[in-house]
Protein backbone atom coordinates (compact mmCIF):
# COMPACT_ATOMS: atom_id res chain seq x y z
CA UNK A 1 0.00 0.00 0.00
CA UNK A 2 1.10 3.54 -0.74
CA UNK A 3 0.06 4.64 2.70
CA UNK A 4 3.00 2.94 4.35
CA UNK A 5 5.77 4.55 2.37
CA UNK A 6 7.82 7.64 3.00
CA UNK A 7 7.16 10.50 5.35
CA UNK A 8 4.42 12.23 3.39
CA UNK A 9 1.04 10.91 4.55
CA UNK A 10 2.12 10.81 8.16
CA UNK A 11 3.73 14.18 7.86
CA UNK A 12 0.57 15.57 6.36
CA UNK A 13 -1.51 14.29 9.23
CA UNK A 14 1.00 15.46 11.81
CA UNK A 15 1.26 18.89 10.28
CA UNK A 16 -2.50 19.22 10.28
CA UNK A 17 -2.71 18.05 13.86
CA UNK A 18 -0.06 20.58 14.86
CA UNK A 19 -2.03 23.32 13.11
CA UNK A 20 -5.19 22.26 14.88
CA UNK A 21 -3.39 22.19 18.22
CA UNK A 22 -1.96 25.62 17.68
CA UNK A 23 -5.41 26.91 16.76
CA UNK A 24 -6.98 25.24 19.78
CA UNK A 25 -4.38 26.70 22.10
CA UNK A 26 -4.97 30.12 20.75
CA UNK A 27 -8.68 29.83 21.28
CA UNK A 28 -8.47 28.33 24.75
CA UNK A 29 -6.11 31.13 25.70
CA UNK A 30 -5.10 32.20 29.17
CA UNK A 31 -8.65 33.12 30.14
CA UNK A 32 -9.81 29.51 30.05
CA UNK A 33 -10.06 29.31 33.83
CA UNK A 34 -12.17 32.41 34.06
CA UNK A 35 -9.50 34.22 36.04
CA UNK A 36 -7.36 36.86 34.44
CA UNK A 37 -4.00 37.64 35.77
CA UNK A 38 -2.40 40.92 34.84
CA UNK A 39 0.05 39.56 32.31
CA UNK A 40 1.44 40.75 29.03
CA UNK A 41 -0.67 39.61 26.10
CA UNK A 42 0.51 36.37 24.55
CA UNK A 43 1.56 37.90 21.24
CA UNK A 44 3.93 40.34 22.90
CA UNK A 45 5.62 37.50 24.78
CA UNK A 46 5.90 35.58 21.53
CA UNK A 47 7.30 38.54 19.64
CA UNK A 48 9.86 39.14 22.40
CA UNK A 49 10.92 35.49 22.31
CA UNK A 50 11.38 35.62 18.55
CA UNK A 51 13.35 38.82 18.81
CA UNK A 52 15.54 37.30 21.54
CA UNK A 53 16.19 34.29 19.29
CA UNK A 54 17.30 36.53 16.45
CA UNK A 55 19.57 38.59 18.75
CA UNK A 56 21.22 35.44 20.14
CA UNK A 57 21.69 34.14 16.61
CA UNK A 58 23.35 37.34 15.40
CA UNK A 59 25.56 37.50 18.53
CA UNK A 60 26.77 33.94 17.99
CA UNK A 61 27.40 34.71 14.34
CA UNK A 62 29.45 37.79 15.30
CA UNK A 63 31.50 35.70 17.77
CA UNK A 64 32.19 33.06 15.14
CA UNK A 65 33.15 35.75 12.61
CA UNK A 66 35.62 37.31 15.06
CA UNK A 67 37.51 34.05 15.47
CA UNK A 68 39.36 34.88 12.27
CA UNK A 69 38.82 32.64 9.29
CA UNK A 70 36.88 33.83 6.29
CA UNK A 71 33.33 34.08 7.59
CA UNK A 72 32.14 37.71 7.30
CA UNK A 73 30.31 39.15 10.32
CA UNK A 74 26.75 40.50 10.36
CA UNK A 75 27.87 44.08 9.77
CA UNK A 76 29.75 43.30 6.58
CA UNK A 77 26.91 41.17 5.27
CA UNK A 78 24.36 43.86 6.06
CA UNK A 79 26.32 46.46 4.10
CA UNK A 80 26.67 44.12 1.14
CA UNK A 81 22.96 43.31 1.34
CA UNK A 82 22.01 46.98 1.22
CA UNK A 83 24.05 47.37 -1.95
CA UNK A 84 22.61 44.26 -3.56
CA UNK A 85 19.00 44.97 -2.70
CA UNK A 86 19.20 48.60 -3.71
CA UNK A 87 19.29 47.38 -7.32
CA UNK A 88 17.82 43.87 -7.45
CA UNK A 89 16.75 43.98 -11.08
CA UNK A 90 19.80 44.95 -13.10
CA UNK A 91 20.90 42.84 -16.00
CA UNK A 92 24.39 42.85 -17.45
CA UNK A 93 24.28 39.79 -19.64
CA UNK A 94 23.28 36.26 -18.71
CA UNK A 95 25.96 35.75 -16.05
CA UNK A 96 25.57 38.99 -14.15
CA UNK A 97 22.03 39.80 -13.08
CA UNK A 98 20.46 41.28 -9.96
CA UNK A 99 19.35 39.03 -7.13
CA UNK A 100 15.70 39.74 -7.95
CA UNK A 101 16.09 38.23 -11.42
CA UNK A 102 17.89 35.23 -9.94
CA UNK A 103 15.14 34.56 -7.40
CA UNK A 104 12.44 35.06 -10.02
CA UNK A 105 14.00 32.67 -12.50
CA UNK A 106 14.35 30.03 -9.76
CA UNK A 107 10.70 30.54 -8.80
CA UNK A 108 9.72 30.28 -12.44
CA UNK A 109 11.44 26.88 -12.75
CA UNK A 110 9.77 25.71 -9.55
CA UNK A 111 6.41 26.96 -10.82
CA UNK A 112 6.64 25.24 -14.19
CA UNK A 113 8.01 21.98 -12.79
CA UNK A 114 5.50 21.91 -10.00
CA UNK A 115 2.63 22.84 -12.31
CA UNK A 116 3.38 19.90 -14.55
CA UNK A 117 3.73 17.62 -11.54
CA UNK A 118 0.32 18.74 -10.24
CA UNK A 119 -1.30 18.34 -13.67
CA UNK A 120 -0.10 14.76 -13.76
CA UNK A 121 0.04 13.84 -10.07
CA UNK A 122 -3.46 14.92 -9.06
CA UNK A 123 -5.35 12.84 -11.64
CA UNK A 124 -3.00 9.91 -11.00
CA UNK A 125 -3.58 10.27 -7.27
CA UNK A 126 -7.34 10.23 -7.79
CA UNK A 127 -7.16 7.06 -9.83
CA UNK A 128 -4.77 5.35 -7.42
CA UNK A 129 -6.97 6.33 -4.49
CA UNK A 130 -10.14 5.13 -6.17
CA UNK A 131 -9.02 1.81 -7.62
CA UNK A 132 -7.33 -0.76 -5.44
CA UNK A 133 -5.74 -2.52 -8.40
CA UNK A 134 -4.01 0.63 -9.63
CA UNK A 135 -2.91 1.38 -6.10
CA UNK A 136 -1.28 -2.02 -5.75
CA UNK A 137 0.26 -1.59 -9.18
CA UNK A 138 1.80 1.77 -8.37
CA UNK A 139 2.83 1.05 -4.78
CA UNK A 140 6.17 -0.70 -5.35
CA UNK A 141 7.30 1.78 -7.99
CA UNK A 142 6.46 4.83 -5.93
CA UNK A 143 7.95 3.23 -2.81
CA UNK A 144 11.19 2.62 -4.64
CA UNK A 145 11.51 5.91 -6.50
CA UNK A 146 10.39 8.26 -3.76
CA UNK A 147 13.49 8.03 -1.55
CA UNK A 148 15.78 8.75 -4.52
CA UNK A 149 17.36 12.20 -4.39
CA UNK A 150 15.81 14.27 -7.16
CA UNK A 151 19.32 15.29 -8.24
CA UNK A 152 20.01 11.73 -9.30
CA UNK A 153 17.49 12.38 -12.08
CA UNK A 154 19.42 15.37 -13.39
CA UNK A 155 21.70 13.45 -15.79
CA UNK A 156 18.63 11.74 -17.26
CA UNK A 157 17.10 15.18 -17.74
CA UNK A 158 20.22 16.49 -19.43
CA UNK A 159 20.26 13.45 -21.66
CA UNK A 160 16.60 13.83 -22.59
CA UNK A 161 16.47 17.59 -23.10
CA UNK A 162 20.07 18.35 -24.03
CA UNK A 163 19.80 21.68 -22.20
CA UNK A 164 20.27 22.88 -18.64
CA UNK A 165 17.04 24.79 -18.10
CA UNK A 166 14.52 22.06 -19.03
CA UNK A 167 16.65 19.56 -17.12
CA UNK A 168 16.32 21.65 -13.94
CA UNK A 169 12.57 21.96 -14.47
CA UNK A 170 12.38 18.24 -15.02
CA UNK A 171 14.11 17.59 -11.68
CA UNK A 172 11.53 19.79 -9.95
CA UNK A 173 8.79 17.87 -11.75
CA UNK A 174 10.11 14.55 -10.49
CA UNK A 175 10.49 15.64 -6.88
CA UNK A 176 7.05 17.31 -6.76
CA UNK A 177 5.29 14.40 -8.37
CA UNK A 178 5.42 11.91 -5.48
CA UNK A 179 3.91 14.09 -2.75
CA UNK A 180 1.12 15.13 -5.12
CA UNK A 181 0.25 11.54 -6.04
CA UNK A 182 0.52 10.16 -2.54
CA UNK A 183 -1.42 12.91 -0.77
CA UNK A 184 -4.19 12.97 -3.32
CA UNK A 185 -4.52 9.19 -3.11
CA UNK A 186 -4.59 9.27 0.69
CA UNK A 187 -7.23 12.01 0.55
CA UNK A 188 -9.43 9.97 -1.77
CA UNK A 189 -9.14 6.98 0.54
CA UNK A 190 -10.00 9.05 3.61
CA UNK A 191 -13.34 10.30 2.27
CA UNK A 192 -15.91 9.39 4.93
CA UNK A 193 -18.27 6.63 3.87
CA UNK A 194 -21.16 8.88 4.95
CA UNK A 195 -20.52 11.27 2.11
CA UNK A 196 -20.40 8.43 -0.38
CA UNK A 197 -23.63 7.03 1.06
CA UNK A 198 -25.29 10.36 0.33
CA UNK A 199 -24.10 10.00 -3.25
CA UNK A 200 -25.39 6.44 -3.38
CA UNK A 201 -28.87 7.04 -2.02
CA UNK A 202 -29.31 9.98 -4.39
CA UNK A 203 -27.83 8.01 -7.30
CA UNK A 204 -25.69 10.99 -8.26
CA UNK A 205 -23.90 10.85 -11.58
CA UNK A 206 -20.16 10.13 -11.57
CA UNK A 207 -19.42 13.70 -12.60
CA UNK A 208 -21.62 15.13 -9.85
CA UNK A 209 -19.99 12.82 -7.31
CA UNK A 210 -16.61 14.07 -8.43
CA UNK A 211 -17.40 17.77 -8.37
CA UNK A 212 -19.55 17.94 -5.25
CA UNK A 213 -18.07 15.19 -3.07
CA UNK A 214 -14.70 13.79 -4.13
CA UNK A 215 -12.99 17.00 -5.14
CA UNK A 216 -13.97 19.15 -2.13
CA UNK A 217 -13.26 16.28 0.25
CA UNK A 218 -9.80 15.70 -1.19
CA UNK A 219 -8.87 19.36 -1.59
CA UNK A 220 -7.31 19.79 1.89
CA UNK A 221 -5.11 16.74 1.30
CA UNK A 222 -4.13 18.05 -2.10
CA UNK A 223 -3.09 21.36 -0.59
CA UNK A 224 -0.93 19.49 1.91
CA UNK A 225 0.63 17.74 -1.09
CA UNK A 226 1.23 21.09 -2.74
CA UNK A 227 2.88 22.36 0.42
CA UNK A 228 5.21 19.39 0.68
CA UNK A 229 6.00 19.51 -3.04
CA UNK A 230 6.80 23.21 -3.11
CA UNK A 231 8.93 22.80 0.02
CA UNK A 232 10.98 20.02 -1.53
CA UNK A 233 11.12 21.80 -4.88
CA UNK A 234 12.55 24.94 -3.30
CA UNK A 235 15.22 22.83 -1.59
CA UNK A 236 16.10 21.03 -4.77
CA UNK A 237 16.16 23.95 -7.20
CA UNK A 238 19.19 25.48 -5.46
CA UNK A 239 21.20 22.31 -5.83
CA UNK A 240 20.01 21.71 -9.38
CA UNK A 241 20.96 25.22 -10.46
CA UNK A 242 24.40 24.85 -8.91
CA UNK A 243 24.91 21.95 -11.26
CA UNK A 244 23.25 23.36 -14.38
CA UNK A 245 24.22 27.03 -14.25
CA UNK A 246 22.35 29.81 -16.02
CA UNK A 247 20.36 32.38 -14.10
CA UNK A 248 18.95 31.42 -10.70
CA UNK A 249 19.58 31.75 -7.02
CA UNK A 250 21.41 28.41 -6.85
CA UNK A 251 23.66 29.36 -9.71
CA UNK A 252 24.23 32.72 -8.09
CA UNK A 253 25.47 30.98 -4.91
CA UNK A 254 27.92 28.96 -6.95
CA UNK A 255 29.02 31.99 -8.94
CA UNK A 256 29.71 34.01 -5.79
CA UNK A 257 31.67 31.06 -4.39
CA UNK A 258 33.85 31.18 -7.47
CA UNK A 259 34.26 34.94 -6.92
CA UNK A 260 34.97 34.20 -3.24
CA UNK A 261 32.33 36.70 -2.13
CA UNK A 262 31.31 34.85 1.01
CA UNK A 263 29.04 37.67 2.22
CA UNK A 264 26.96 37.26 -0.93
CA UNK A 265 26.61 33.55 -0.25
CA UNK A 266 25.27 34.34 3.21
CA UNK A 267 22.84 36.86 1.69
CA UNK A 268 21.71 34.15 -0.72
CA UNK A 269 21.14 31.74 2.18
CA UNK A 270 18.89 34.24 3.94
CA UNK A 271 17.08 35.09 0.72
CA UNK A 272 16.39 31.42 -0.02
CA UNK A 273 15.19 30.94 3.55
CA UNK A 274 12.85 33.92 3.48
CA UNK A 275 11.37 33.04 0.08
CA UNK A 276 10.82 29.46 1.30
CA UNK A 277 9.14 30.77 4.44
CA UNK A 278 6.83 33.02 2.42
CA UNK A 279 5.88 30.16 0.08
CA UNK A 280 5.08 27.94 3.06
CA UNK A 281 3.01 30.62 4.80
CA UNK A 282 1.05 31.38 1.65
CA UNK A 283 0.16 27.72 1.30
CA UNK A 284 -0.76 27.40 4.98
CA UNK A 285 -3.18 30.28 4.50
CA UNK A 286 -4.59 28.60 1.41
CA UNK A 287 -5.01 25.35 3.34
CA UNK A 288 -6.85 27.12 6.13
CA UNK A 289 -9.22 28.65 3.61
CA UNK A 290 -10.21 25.17 2.40
CA UNK A 291 -10.39 23.25 5.65
CA UNK A 292 -13.91 22.45 6.78
CA UNK A 293 -13.46 21.39 10.37
Amino acid at each position, binding site marked *: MIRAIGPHPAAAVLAERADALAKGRKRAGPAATGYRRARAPEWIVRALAMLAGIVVFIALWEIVARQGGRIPGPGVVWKAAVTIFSDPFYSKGPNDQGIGWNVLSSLKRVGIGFGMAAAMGIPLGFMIGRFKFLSDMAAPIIAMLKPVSPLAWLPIGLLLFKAANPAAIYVIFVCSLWPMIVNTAVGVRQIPQ*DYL*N*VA*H*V*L*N*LSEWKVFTTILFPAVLPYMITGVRLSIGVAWLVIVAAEMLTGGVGIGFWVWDEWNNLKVEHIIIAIFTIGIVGLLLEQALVLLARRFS*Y*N
Partner: protein
Amino acid sequence: MDSERYLRIENVGMTFETRKGDFVALERIDLAVRKGEFVSLIGHSGCGKSTLLNLVAGLLLPTAGGLLLAEREIAGPGPDRGVVFQNHSLLPWLTCFDNVYLAVERVFPDEKNILRERTHNALAMVGLTHAEAKYPNEISGGMKQRVGIARALAIEPKMLLLDEPFGALDALTRANLQDELLKIVDKTGATVLMVTHDVDEAVLLSDRIVMMTNGPAARIGGVLEVDLPRPRERLALAGDRRYIELRTTVMDFLYRKQLKQAA
Protein backbone atom coordinates in the same frame (compact mmCIF):
# COMPACT_ATOMS: atom_id res chain seq x y z
CA MET B 1 -51.44 -1.10 -6.31
CA ASP B 2 -51.50 -2.98 -3.07
CA SER B 3 -51.23 -0.18 -0.55
CA GLU B 4 -51.62 -2.62 2.33
CA ARG B 5 -48.30 -4.10 1.33
CA TYR B 6 -46.47 -1.03 0.04
CA LEU B 7 -43.10 -2.21 1.25
CA ARG B 8 -42.68 -5.98 1.23
CA ILE B 9 -39.77 -7.66 2.90
CA GLU B 10 -40.04 -11.31 1.96
CA ASN B 11 -38.05 -14.07 3.57
CA VAL B 12 -34.98 -11.88 3.62
CA GLY B 13 -31.67 -13.17 4.91
CA MET B 14 -28.38 -11.37 5.06
CA THR B 15 -25.05 -13.15 5.45
CA PHE B 16 -21.78 -11.26 5.47
CA GLU B 17 -18.57 -12.89 4.40
CA THR B 18 -15.93 -12.10 6.96
CA ARG B 19 -12.41 -13.29 7.46
CA LYS B 20 -13.57 -15.65 10.18
CA GLY B 21 -16.18 -17.19 7.94
CA ASP B 22 -19.78 -16.34 7.19
CA PHE B 23 -21.66 -14.12 9.59
CA VAL B 24 -25.44 -14.46 9.50
CA ALA B 25 -26.86 -11.06 10.43
CA LEU B 26 -30.51 -11.55 9.50
CA GLU B 27 -32.56 -14.66 8.92
CA ARG B 28 -35.99 -15.14 7.42
CA ILE B 29 -37.35 -11.64 7.88
CA ASP B 30 -40.92 -11.13 6.69
CA LEU B 31 -42.58 -7.77 6.99
CA ALA B 32 -45.10 -5.69 5.09
CA VAL B 33 -45.53 -1.97 5.61
CA ARG B 34 -48.76 -0.16 4.65
CA LYS B 35 -48.70 3.02 2.66
CA GLY B 36 -48.62 5.91 5.13
CA GLU B 37 -47.63 3.70 8.01
CA PHE B 38 -44.90 4.52 10.52
CA VAL B 39 -42.96 1.40 11.51
CA SER B 40 -40.11 1.29 14.00
CA LEU B 41 -37.43 -1.37 14.23
CA ILE B 42 -36.24 -1.77 17.78
CA GLY B 43 -33.68 -4.09 19.31
CA HIS B 44 -30.38 -4.23 21.10
CA SER B 45 -27.33 -2.94 19.29
CA GLY B 46 -25.93 -5.52 16.91
CA CYS B 47 -29.33 -7.07 16.23
CA GLY B 48 -29.19 -6.16 12.58
CA LYS B 49 -31.86 -3.48 12.58
CA SER B 50 -29.61 -1.07 10.71
CA THR B 51 -28.72 -3.86 8.30
CA LEU B 52 -32.41 -4.29 7.56
CA LEU B 53 -32.80 -0.56 6.97
CA ASN B 54 -29.77 -0.55 4.67
CA LEU B 55 -31.38 -3.38 2.73
CA VAL B 56 -34.49 -1.27 2.21
CA ALA B 57 -32.28 1.68 1.29
CA GLY B 58 -30.55 -0.55 -1.25
CA LEU B 59 -27.12 0.14 0.21
CA LEU B 60 -26.93 -3.62 0.81
CA LEU B 61 -28.42 -6.41 -1.26
CA PRO B 62 -29.94 -9.41 0.54
CA THR B 63 -28.30 -12.81 0.26
CA ALA B 64 -31.70 -14.50 0.49
CA GLY B 65 -35.26 -13.43 -0.24
CA GLY B 66 -36.29 -10.12 -1.76
CA LEU B 67 -37.62 -6.65 -1.08
CA LEU B 68 -40.27 -4.78 -3.00
CA LEU B 69 -41.33 -1.16 -2.75
CA ALA B 70 -44.53 -0.23 -4.58
CA GLU B 71 -44.39 -3.50 -6.51
CA ARG B 72 -40.86 -2.93 -7.71
CA GLU B 73 -37.88 -4.87 -6.55
CA ILE B 74 -35.27 -2.94 -4.61
CA ALA B 75 -32.09 -3.57 -6.59
CA GLY B 76 -29.98 -0.70 -5.33
CA PRO B 77 -30.09 2.72 -3.74
CA GLY B 78 -32.31 5.32 -5.32
CA PRO B 79 -33.99 8.63 -4.67
CA ASP B 80 -37.43 7.05 -4.28
CA ARG B 81 -36.32 6.40 -0.72
CA GLY B 82 -35.22 9.32 1.43
CA VAL B 83 -32.62 8.29 3.98
CA VAL B 84 -31.77 10.20 7.15
CA PHE B 85 -28.50 8.97 8.59
CA GLN B 86 -27.63 8.96 12.27
CA ASN B 87 -24.73 11.36 11.84
CA HIS B 88 -26.61 13.74 9.54
CA SER B 89 -24.10 13.22 6.67
CA LEU B 90 -24.29 16.78 5.44
CA LEU B 91 -21.53 17.86 3.10
CA PRO B 92 -19.50 20.39 5.10
CA TRP B 93 -18.53 22.48 2.09
CA LEU B 94 -22.13 23.17 1.09
CA THR B 95 -24.57 25.47 2.87
CA CYS B 96 -27.72 23.98 4.35
CA PHE B 97 -29.59 25.22 1.31
CA ASP B 98 -27.12 23.68 -1.12
CA ASN B 99 -27.14 20.38 0.75
CA VAL B 100 -30.88 20.11 0.20
CA TYR B 101 -30.66 21.59 -3.29
CA LEU B 102 -28.21 18.85 -4.32
CA ALA B 103 -30.90 16.26 -3.67
CA VAL B 104 -33.74 18.29 -5.19
CA GLU B 105 -31.80 19.01 -8.35
CA ARG B 106 -31.05 15.32 -8.79
CA VAL B 107 -34.65 14.19 -8.41
CA PHE B 108 -36.52 16.89 -10.30
CA PRO B 109 -34.16 17.81 -13.13
CA ASP B 110 -36.98 18.96 -15.42
CA GLU B 111 -38.45 21.50 -13.07
CA LYS B 112 -35.59 23.97 -13.11
CA ASN B 113 -37.79 26.93 -12.23
CA ILE B 114 -39.14 25.52 -8.98
CA LEU B 115 -36.04 23.78 -7.64
CA ARG B 116 -35.18 26.66 -5.35
CA GLU B 117 -38.75 26.95 -4.18
CA ARG B 118 -38.87 23.27 -3.33
CA THR B 119 -35.65 23.60 -1.36
CA HIS B 120 -37.01 26.62 0.51
CA ASN B 121 -40.21 24.76 1.31
CA ALA B 122 -38.37 21.70 2.63
CA LEU B 123 -36.21 23.82 4.92
CA ALA B 124 -39.23 25.83 6.03
CA MET B 125 -41.00 22.60 6.96
CA VAL B 126 -38.25 21.80 9.49
CA GLY B 127 -38.16 25.41 10.67
CA LEU B 128 -34.76 26.31 9.28
CA THR B 129 -35.51 29.16 6.91
CA HIS B 130 -33.20 31.40 8.92
CA ALA B 131 -30.24 29.01 8.63
CA GLU B 132 -30.35 28.39 4.86
CA ALA B 133 -27.12 30.23 4.16
CA LYS B 134 -25.19 28.67 7.03
CA TYR B 135 -22.65 25.89 6.74
CA PRO B 136 -23.17 22.67 8.71
CA ASN B 137 -20.35 23.44 11.14
CA GLU B 138 -22.09 26.70 12.06
CA ILE B 139 -25.27 25.09 13.35
CA SER B 140 -26.14 22.77 16.24
CA GLY B 141 -26.44 18.99 16.05
CA GLY B 142 -30.23 19.19 16.20
CA MET B 143 -30.33 21.67 13.34
CA LYS B 144 -28.02 19.49 11.25
CA GLN B 145 -30.38 16.58 11.71
CA ARG B 146 -33.29 18.81 10.65
CA VAL B 147 -31.43 19.63 7.46
CA GLY B 148 -30.94 15.88 6.99
CA ILE B 149 -34.69 15.39 7.34
CA ALA B 150 -35.40 18.28 4.98
CA ARG B 151 -33.05 16.74 2.42
CA ALA B 152 -34.83 13.40 2.68
CA LEU B 153 -38.32 14.94 2.47
CA ALA B 154 -37.53 17.43 -0.29
CA ILE B 155 -37.23 14.69 -2.88
CA GLU B 156 -40.77 13.48 -2.08
CA PRO B 157 -39.69 9.89 -1.60
CA LYS B 158 -42.06 6.96 -1.60
CA MET B 159 -40.60 6.07 1.72
CA LEU B 160 -38.65 7.78 4.45
CA LEU B 161 -35.91 5.72 6.09
CA LEU B 162 -34.56 6.94 9.40
CA ASP B 163 -31.47 5.30 10.87
CA GLU B 164 -31.44 6.22 14.57
CA PRO B 165 -32.03 9.80 13.47
CA PHE B 166 -31.94 11.31 16.94
CA GLY B 167 -29.44 8.93 18.53
CA ALA B 168 -26.62 11.45 18.68
CA LEU B 169 -28.68 14.27 20.20
CA ASP B 170 -29.28 15.30 23.79
CA ALA B 171 -32.59 14.35 25.41
CA LEU B 172 -34.29 17.74 25.10
CA THR B 173 -33.31 18.31 21.49
CA ARG B 174 -34.36 14.77 20.72
CA ALA B 175 -37.83 15.28 22.23
CA ASN B 176 -38.15 18.48 20.28
CA LEU B 177 -37.28 16.85 16.97
CA GLN B 178 -39.54 13.87 17.68
CA ASP B 179 -42.48 16.26 18.12
CA GLU B 180 -41.52 17.97 14.91
CA LEU B 181 -41.23 14.69 13.03
CA LEU B 182 -44.62 13.67 14.41
CA LYS B 183 -46.16 16.82 12.94
CA ILE B 184 -44.43 16.44 9.60
CA VAL B 185 -45.49 12.82 9.27
CA ASP B 186 -49.10 13.69 10.18
CA LYS B 187 -49.06 16.46 7.60
CA THR B 188 -47.39 14.61 4.72
CA GLY B 189 -48.72 11.11 5.38
CA ALA B 190 -45.25 9.72 4.71
CA THR B 191 -44.48 6.02 4.89
CA VAL B 192 -41.68 5.68 7.39
CA LEU B 193 -39.32 2.97 8.53
CA MET B 194 -37.25 4.03 11.52
CA VAL B 195 -34.47 2.26 13.37
CA THR B 196 -34.26 3.17 17.04
CA HIS B 197 -33.22 1.86 20.43
CA ASP B 198 -35.32 4.37 22.31
CA VAL B 199 -38.54 2.80 23.62
CA ASP B 200 -40.39 6.09 24.18
CA GLU B 201 -39.47 7.29 20.73
CA ALA B 202 -40.79 4.10 19.18
CA VAL B 203 -44.11 4.18 21.06
CA LEU B 204 -44.66 7.89 20.55
CA LEU B 205 -44.04 7.91 16.81
CA SER B 206 -45.01 4.50 15.47
CA ASP B 207 -48.09 2.74 14.20
CA ARG B 208 -46.30 -0.54 14.67
CA ILE B 209 -43.14 -1.54 16.48
CA VAL B 210 -41.10 -4.42 15.10
CA MET B 211 -39.05 -5.96 17.89
CA MET B 212 -35.97 -7.83 16.78
CA THR B 213 -34.22 -10.66 18.56
CA ASN B 214 -30.53 -10.49 19.32
CA GLY B 215 -28.05 -11.34 16.60
CA PRO B 216 -26.39 -13.20 15.10
CA ALA B 217 -29.14 -14.53 12.87
CA ALA B 218 -31.57 -11.92 14.18
CA ARG B 219 -35.26 -12.37 13.44
CA ILE B 220 -38.46 -10.53 14.13
CA GLY B 221 -39.32 -11.41 17.73
CA GLY B 222 -42.66 -9.69 17.82
CA VAL B 223 -44.75 -6.94 16.25
CA LEU B 224 -46.67 -4.52 18.43
CA GLU B 225 -49.63 -2.44 17.16
CA VAL B 226 -49.49 1.00 18.71
CA ASP B 227 -53.19 1.81 18.84
CA LEU B 228 -52.84 5.29 20.28
CA PRO B 229 -54.99 7.88 18.50
CA ARG B 230 -53.32 10.59 16.45
CA PRO B 231 -52.42 13.38 16.68
CA ARG B 232 -50.37 12.36 19.66
CA GLU B 233 -49.11 14.68 22.31
CA ARG B 234 -46.10 13.85 24.40
CA LEU B 235 -47.29 15.37 27.68
CA ALA B 236 -50.80 13.95 27.47
CA LEU B 237 -49.43 10.49 26.72
CA ALA B 238 -46.93 10.47 29.58
CA GLY B 239 -49.60 9.36 32.06
CA ASP B 240 -51.83 7.52 29.57
CA ARG B 241 -52.57 3.93 30.64
CA ARG B 242 -52.41 2.46 27.17
CA TYR B 243 -49.14 4.28 26.47
CA ILE B 244 -47.61 2.85 29.62
CA GLU B 245 -48.85 -0.65 28.76
CA LEU B 246 -47.31 -0.48 25.28
CA ARG B 247 -44.11 0.89 26.67
CA THR B 248 -43.96 -1.91 29.23
CA THR B 249 -44.52 -4.52 26.54
CA VAL B 250 -41.53 -3.27 24.55
CA MET B 251 -39.40 -2.95 27.69
CA ASP B 252 -40.38 -6.44 28.70
CA PHE B 253 -39.32 -7.76 25.32
CA LEU B 254 -36.02 -5.92 25.33
CA TYR B 255 -34.94 -6.42 28.91
CA ARG B 256 -36.47 -9.76 29.90
CA LYS B 257 -36.87 -11.86 26.79
CA GLN B 258 -33.90 -10.48 24.88
CA LEU B 259 -31.63 -9.49 27.72
CA LYS B 260 -28.22 -9.12 26.27
CA GLN B 261 -25.35 -10.52 28.25
CA ALA B 262 -23.09 -7.71 29.36
CA ALA B 263 -20.55 -7.43 26.61
